[in-house]
């Protein structure tokens, strides 16, 4: 579990790679969660993260996550909630 998000993430940000075009909006809004790779695609900032298409985030990031999902030009982001 990532130190940045605490023991219990509020949710996970799922990246649909077949849609993602690396336009950089999510990486601007969520600099603590996502950086950009060599080609501009979002990359989990935490290198230890096990699942790199399913980024855990904490309560503090809720609003920024919602903005990133709403503003993604390719609709590539989905929030997954714990069941």
């Amino acid at each position: 579990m990532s130190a940045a998000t605490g023991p219990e993430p509020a949710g996970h940000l799922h990246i649909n790679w077949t849609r993602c075009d690396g336009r950089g909006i999510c990486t601007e809004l969520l600099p603590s969660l996502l950086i950009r790779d060599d080609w501009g695609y979002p990359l989990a900032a935490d290198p230890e993260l096990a699942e790199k298409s399913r980024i855990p985030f904490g309560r503090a990031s809720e609003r920024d996550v919602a903005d990133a999902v709403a503003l993604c030009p390719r609709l590539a982001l989905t929030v997954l909630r714990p069941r």
Partner: protein
Amino acid sequence: MDEALWAFGRASGAVSLALFTLSVVLGILVRSGRPLLVLPRFAVTLVHRNVALFALIFLGLHVGTLMLDPYAQLRLVDVVVPFLGAVKPFWQGLGTVALDLAAAVVATSLLRRRLGPGIFRAVHWLTYVLWPVALLHAVGNGTDGTSKWFLLLALAAAAAVGGAGLWRLSPRFLESARLRQEEAS
């Protein structure tokens, strides 16, 4: 009162066109994936959307006031179906076409998440038709449409959208073009 409606109807049309022009240019900038000076990418997206929203508000005022206006003789059917108008039916009809296209673009934008990116994008491309049609409508139908000052403004707007369009077609348009060129074959 009628004079005020008439004047406001015309002015709101011109403002709407100006805002649409700005929105189209910003939309092309959004597609490039680049930030604008101090504005980050997400802010450029938000400005694009908000400018479009204001353009729509003025478009609504433009159509609404002219429906109340006795000179324009605009009927409800003319708002939806083009080329049936009593006055300058062709030029007025272009405005109706633009309005219909704008309605389609707005509807698909609001329902983007439900429709998926494919339909959204396909309909969004209609703005490249919408904008020149709206400009022609302004020049051909507007009372001042062929006046020197308006033509100059229209020319400036056309230059802005045309320039942005040419940039859109250039090979280095995308911010990621340089990063992704070596490996892509």
